[in-house]
């Protein structure tokens, strides 16, 4: 359907230009900056709802397509469109951004305009990444995103913020330049940067493997997969609450999205050849990082490691299809793996965001993220305690919450692929429960640890609203995931078809 309105362009440029507007508001009028930022983020959210309303889930084709020449000298187009894979992520982005703006409302007191501007510009750029149908446009958004994130962590972050943010930038930049080299190479082969043209480009196996590895370098850093995950705990711990939420909820999903949009369909044969590599790394992330999370004493670090483990599930789900097809298994299971990965991404976006917001609520009051400084929080903050327990349970994958759906799908699919995959993947149910619930036990329950905890104020209306909205969405998605899975069903099947078709020159 066409609305006649360039919805995707609006979704990208309203936040970016709005962000520039907010940038101009100085600290003397910080409440103007807050309200403007909130208005713009709500407007973007509204626009994304229009997108949802106008989206036809039965079609796997790109929708809301916009096509304009951009750099004609190199056949680069400003080409936008969404399918069932990109749309849920765009919705997640606009939704989380509203909450992030609210979460920074009173907490941020220095350079308020710049803070909100950075998040709004980020929002626009992230939507640009999800909506690009041209590889170079994708790359431009992908890299440009680093600039506001660099500033967010570095300006408003914790004590070791400079180290963390430079590490974050250089890690992700190094990963992406290899992708750029591959994209240029494929442009020389196909004469186009259009992603769909790259899908159709036949490639030899050695070339495919190189391209696959370069994509892996870019996306594995972003996901992040073990062993290139070490920037994440640093960045998460030092980032301000809003930054952690955006990082965990959306930026990590860029990597997963990249696998679906680039690695799998552009280099299907290399993916088949090297699926053991990705699956192996994913299982290491699930099991080993799970143990690492167990021993953390810093709440944010614990959630950061839990994010790595959960993202391991996502990449596992994406690359199961080959093993399933080789065992002559049904394609339904393969598609279930992909769907599970996608659902896990959305659900993890909500849950990790919520967990970081919970830590943020505590940090704003106590200025400590150390688990040892807490204990018996529920006595002084009963409402907050309830929220935190709910999110912790969904992080551990409790049935009825969104955390369960994705994990269940992926474990089911991995049984079809290989018993050992499933066994190792399933350990997350134990490990996840162990590290999350143990943290909750030490922080929320037990004796009141000290006077500071006893004097804690429960959540205010703003915080209640943020956590409440997230709790509702986590439960809704857990009890009734059909709207989400329907949305991406046909796009996933189309992708699976693409992935199962060899691109080798006969």
């Amino acid at each position, binding site marked *: 359907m066409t609305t006649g309105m360039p919805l995707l362009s609006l979704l990208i440029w309203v936040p970016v230009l709005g962000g520039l507007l907010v*940038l101009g508001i*100085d600290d003397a009028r910080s409440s103007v900056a807050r309200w403007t930022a909130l208005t713009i983020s709500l407007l973007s959210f509204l626009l994304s709802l229009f997108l949802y309303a106008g989206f036809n889930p039965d079609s796997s084709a790109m929708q809301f397509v916009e096509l304009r*020449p*951009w*750099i*004609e*000298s*190199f056949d680069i187009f400003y080409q936008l469109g969404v399918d069932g894979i990109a749309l849920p992520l765009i919705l997640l982005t606009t939704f989380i951004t509203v909450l992030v703006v609210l979460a920074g409302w009173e907490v941020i007191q220095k*350079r308020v305009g*710049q803070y909100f501007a950075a998040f709004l510009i980020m929002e626009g750029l992230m939507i640009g990444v999800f909506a690009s149908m041209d590889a*170079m446009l994708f*790359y*431009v958004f992908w*890299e*440009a995103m*680093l*600039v506001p994130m*660099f*500033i967010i962590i*570095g*300006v408003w972050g914790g004590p070791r*913020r*400079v180290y963390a*943010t*430079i590490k974050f*930038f*250089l890690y992700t*930049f*190094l990963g992406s*330049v*290899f992708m*750029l*080299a591959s994209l*240029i*190479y494929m*442009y*020389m082969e196909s004469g186009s940067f259009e992603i769909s043209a790259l899908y159709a480009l036949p490639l030899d196996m050695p070339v495919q493997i190189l391209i696959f590895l370069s994509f892996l370098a870019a996306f594995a850093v972003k996901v992040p997969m073990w062993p290139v995950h070490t920037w994440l705990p640093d960045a998460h711990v030092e980032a301000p609450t809003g930054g952690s939420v955006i990082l965990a909820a959306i930026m990590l999903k860029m990597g997963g999205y990249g696998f679906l949009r680039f690695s799998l369909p552009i280099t299907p044969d290399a993916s088949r050849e090297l699926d053991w590599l990705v699956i192996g790394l994913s299982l290491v992330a699930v099991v080993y990082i799970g143990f690492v999370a167990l021993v953390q004493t810093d709440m944010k670090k614990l959630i950061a490691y839990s994010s790595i483990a959960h993202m391991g599930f996502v990449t596992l789900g994406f690359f199961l299809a080959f093993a399933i097809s080789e065992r002559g298994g049904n394609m339904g299971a393969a598609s279930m793996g992909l769907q599970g990965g996608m659902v896990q991404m959305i659900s993890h976006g909500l849950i990790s965001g919520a967990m970081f917001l919970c830590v943020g609520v505590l940090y704003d009051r106590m200025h400590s993220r150390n688990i040892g400084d807490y204990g018996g929080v529920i006595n002084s903050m009963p409402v907050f305690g309830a929220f935190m327990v709910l999110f912790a349970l969904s992080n551990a994958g409790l049935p009825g919450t969104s955390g369960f759906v994705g994990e269940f799908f992926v474990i089911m699919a991995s049984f079809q692929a290989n018993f050992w995959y499933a066994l190792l993947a399933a350990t997350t149910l134990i490990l996840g429960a162990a590290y999350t619930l143990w943290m909750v036990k030490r922080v929320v329950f037990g004796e009141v640890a000290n006077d500071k905890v006893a004097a804690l104020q429960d959540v205010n209306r703003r915080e209640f609203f943020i956590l409440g909205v997230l709790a509702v969405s986590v439960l809704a998605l857990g009890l009734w995931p059909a709207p989400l899975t329907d949305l991406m069903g046909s796009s996933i099947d189309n992708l699976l078809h693409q992935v199962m078709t060899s691109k080798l020159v006969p």
Partner: protein
Amino acid sequence: MNFVSPDLSPAYAEMFVLTMTCLVLVVDAFLRDSQRGITYTLSMLTLVGAAVITSQFGVDARISAFSDHFISDPMGDILKLVVYATTAVVFLYSRDYLRRNDIFHGEFFVLALFAMLGIMVMVSAGSLLSLYLGLELLSLSLYALVAFQRTSTQGAEAAMKYFVLGAIASGCLLYGISLLYGMTGTISLSGLAENLTTADQFSLPLLFGLAFVVVGLAFKFGAVPFHAWVPDVYQGAPTAVTLFIASAPKIAAFALAIRLLVDGLGDLQGGWQDMLTALAVLSIVFGNLVAIVQTNIKRMLAYSTISHVGFILLGILTGSQEGYAAAMYYTIAYVVMTTGAFGMIMVLSRKGFEVEQLDDFKGLNTRSPWLAGLMLMIIFSMAGIPPFVGFYAKLTVLMGLVEVGLTWLAVLALVFSVVGAFYYLRVVKLMYFDDPLDQGKPEAATDIRVLLSANAILVLLLGVFPDGLMSLCIKVFQ
């Protein structure tokens, strides 16, 4: 004997600039110190006039004039227009800086205009002789400019180094030229191109001559290992002069490379490609690594320039039209970014306070968010992060490389731009994450602030809409 008056129209711009510069020189001699504004205005008018003439007499195709000593072509016209604009920007940025340091003398403008004339002659050179003439006019003016703050011992030292090394480079170039002349019997570039064939790239004497020519070229570019003068001159010269040396002469070096290597010695490509590869790789590796340990902003920018020069050389060494266009695009993008960066240094300096150290950028965001934002764009552009122009400059060069199958060079260049990102990020870190050392507000004049803003926003705009300049560069090489 019949004397036929040559058609002078291809060189109207050069003649105009020469006449006007002499006029400025004479007029300035009769002015009191308080009236230097007249010199400034006259110099600006010279640039405007030259721009009008060049665009009026612009050509669509190559014209040779004065027995092949002079070439007028679209590439030359565009480069000249960029040079005028750059010089005008330099004058504008420098005005207050020179006044503040009591060096607001006519020499600055006269020498800069002569240097610009040298660049114009190089850009339009059709023979080895005119190429060399232009180069010497440029170089001699620059030596004098570096030393032009008479009381500064640092400046004198830098000028001495620059002069000695530059003279050696000119000697190398001249020796190479003499060898080429000896082997081919012509000094005209088109004559060289006619007399040489691709088989000549294995001729030892020619390669010997070529090597000397390339050495001279590398000196002028400041490519490793002929870069030793760059950091010292950048640091020692008054910032206004550094700004000039860092920008316009790079366009001249690019023109020199194209005229000499491509137009004249195109058939020896097999020979110079390897030499340029070595220079480019060394420049990118060395420039980026050494920049990391610099604490002086001008030295850091000097090493950053060296790595940018490596990229320009990468574009030229592809030997393809796309590569030349990419190198030209890179050169122009580099000039835009560099004028912005040095312009920022001058805007931040005050009476009695010269911005020299990187630490002087500390906490700029607290002192002036707007200036910090502008510098942020320039710095990220230099690091090659989209959506700024520096990214597309790198992109076009890389595409040129991959197209001719030099993918390994492209990957190497990419990896070292990640290394380079580190020291650029440090500047952003100082501006945004650290507390200011002093609370003084920058006190630059409004027109200079507007110019700086326009300069930085151009970095962004050329990045968001890169196609115009890019297709222009591609067109001139078709």
